[in-house]
């Protein structure tokens, strides 16, 4: 395999981690977050700042990066306990913008728009991850682990609890399910996973810039999840592969580079619209339609109704 193929495959593995972790929130718990790129960024920036500016070893930096990303997830959980549906959407959007603003403007730490160059890949005993093949192996192993843990979780009693919370929060509370614990724990977990993807991304690109962790990236990750089918772990991985590969395919066409970026976005947008008309449950969403859930995820959620009535 040449370097280009290795590089694309690694990127797919990293985005697969992101889309699997977001599907835990969106698909399984009904928390529709526009802030996943922010959690991704917290992991990436923490790792980069600690290793490059403070000269930490990769191990401790990884641990702190995961902890901070999990903490960011917990912060995100706070508005989700109070509001849902459209309201949470706006709250998560606000969080995303705040995080993006910090990445871009806290120049003394994040390097501002200049970003952080000079990140190094770790070596583990005989394994030197500076080699693209070895690094792809690492990324794939991590992605498989995240997918396996997620798959195990959503099929466990914990996963069933998440589903009850998603389908009807009031019923979940009435049944004595710990709604608060469910929401906080799943956002913390999704935050840690996204942070892990961030650390891998920093090691993959060896350079960070704030543009990677903007709203547009959150939208891309959402598209991956929706494309794959919201609740399907395998679907989330396939969604990530498709969304990473489309720009590569477009790059083969002869398009001026200034127009290629916007055209790529136009393509994503059209894909999203088409998907919602033709197959709103996503590629692997199963044939049974669940209109009640898709309505409940945003809009008619209990909170929204309460506010409307008030």
């Amino acid at each position, binding site marked *: 395999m040449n370097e280009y193929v290795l590089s694309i495959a690694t990127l797919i593995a990293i985005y697969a981690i992101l889309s699997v972790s977001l599907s835990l929130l969106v698909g399984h718990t009904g928390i*529709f977050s526009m802030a996943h790129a922010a959690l991704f960024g917290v992991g990436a920036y923490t790792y980069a700042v600690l290793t490059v500016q403070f000269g930490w070893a990769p191990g401790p930096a990884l641990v702190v990066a995961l902890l901070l990303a999990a903490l960011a997830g917990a912060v995100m959980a*706070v*508005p989700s306990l*109070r*509001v849902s*549906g*459209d*309201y949470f*959407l*706006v*709250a998560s*959007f*606000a*969080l995303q*913008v*705040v995080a993006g*603003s*910090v990445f*871009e*403007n806290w120049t003394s730490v994040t390097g501002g728009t200049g970003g952080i160059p000079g990140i190094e890949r770790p070596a583990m005993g005989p394994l030197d991850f500076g080699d693209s093949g070895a690094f792809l192996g690492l990324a794939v192993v991590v992605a498989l682990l995240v997918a396996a843990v997620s798959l195990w979780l959503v099929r466990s009693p914990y996963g069933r609890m998440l589903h009850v919370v998603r389908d009807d929060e009031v019923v979940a509370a009435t049944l004595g399910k710990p709604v608060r614990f469910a929401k906080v724990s799943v956002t913390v977990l999704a935050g840690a996973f996204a942070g892990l993807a961030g650390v891998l991304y920093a090691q993959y690109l060896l350079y960070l810039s704030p543009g990677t962790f903007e*709203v*547009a990236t959150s*939208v891309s990750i*959402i598209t991956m999840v*929706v494309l794959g089918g919201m609740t399907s772990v395998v679907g989330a991985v396939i969604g990530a592969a498709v969304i990473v590969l489309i720009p590569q395919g477009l790059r083969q066409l002869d398009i001026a580079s*200034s*127009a290629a970026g*916007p*055209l790529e*976005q*136009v393509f*994503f*947008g*059209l*894909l*999203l*619209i088409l*998907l*919602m*008309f033709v197959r*709103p449950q996503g590629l692997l969403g199963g044939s049974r*339609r669940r*209109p009640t859930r*898709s*309505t*409940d*995820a*945003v*809009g*008619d959620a209990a*909170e929204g109704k309460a*506010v*409307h009535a*008030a």
Partner: protein
Amino acid sequence: MDLFVQLLLNGLVAGSLYALVAVGFALIFAATRHFHIAHAAVFAAGGYFAYFLTDFLPVGPAVAAAVLLSVVLGVALVTLLYRPLERRGGAGFVLFLVSLGALIVIDNVFTVGLGAQPARLAAGSWFTTTVAIGEWSLIAGQVALIVVAFLLFGGLVTLLAKTRMGKLVQAFSANPEFVEIVGRKPQVVLVVVYALGSLLAAVAGVYVAADTGMQPGLGETFFIVSVMAVIIGGIGSITGSFVAAMLLGLLQNVLLLVMGAEWTLAAIFVLFLVLITVSPEGLAKINFRRVKASA
């Protein structure tokens, strides 16, 4: 103190922009419950259309045509995308994703032609003429924006309260089935609220194009601040949205006294997050409770 008053004036300008977008969204959201994020694209389209049309037309007609085209765009979104989707049983989240897709498509279609360059509308020299207000000043374009924002808001409130169609819109917002009961087509109401809402957003977009130039992603920022205003002002309240949007604009500028310009927007968002966590029903609700408690 000098600076403070000037910041308030600038805040009024920012508030007017937010208010135009927010009131338009509030009108649409109250009647349809559509989380119409492509409202941001209608706002951007106003600016882009005006920019492109000035190649063929004088500024005045170009702006009028741009606003008209944006209204057509807004109405097209609801009739060609949202309504067919709803007929297929898609609502809430599915509708939001379609709207998001439309926003991405529209915002980027304009960018393909322009590259990274902002679309700066040449409004003429009058736009930047200084207007002295006491020891402070605004440019004529800003004064025009504030006047237009208040006029459009006043016009909309009158329209809703006094005309038959306005009352129908209000009735529809309160109970969609009512409109069918009295024998009117709900589609008419949808077209009316989307047309009016898009008109307000497009006017704001034209101003932004003339002032700083329209850029990709700009619409989203204005949209999200405006939605915050709608939530703070209380869903369904046009006046609440208008007032909240003005306050956000004022606050954003007054914050310049204590922080750099790059942080004011983030500060407002943090404040919103705290507010929505403390009182999900919006600011209007807090005041109401206080009044009740003291009475």
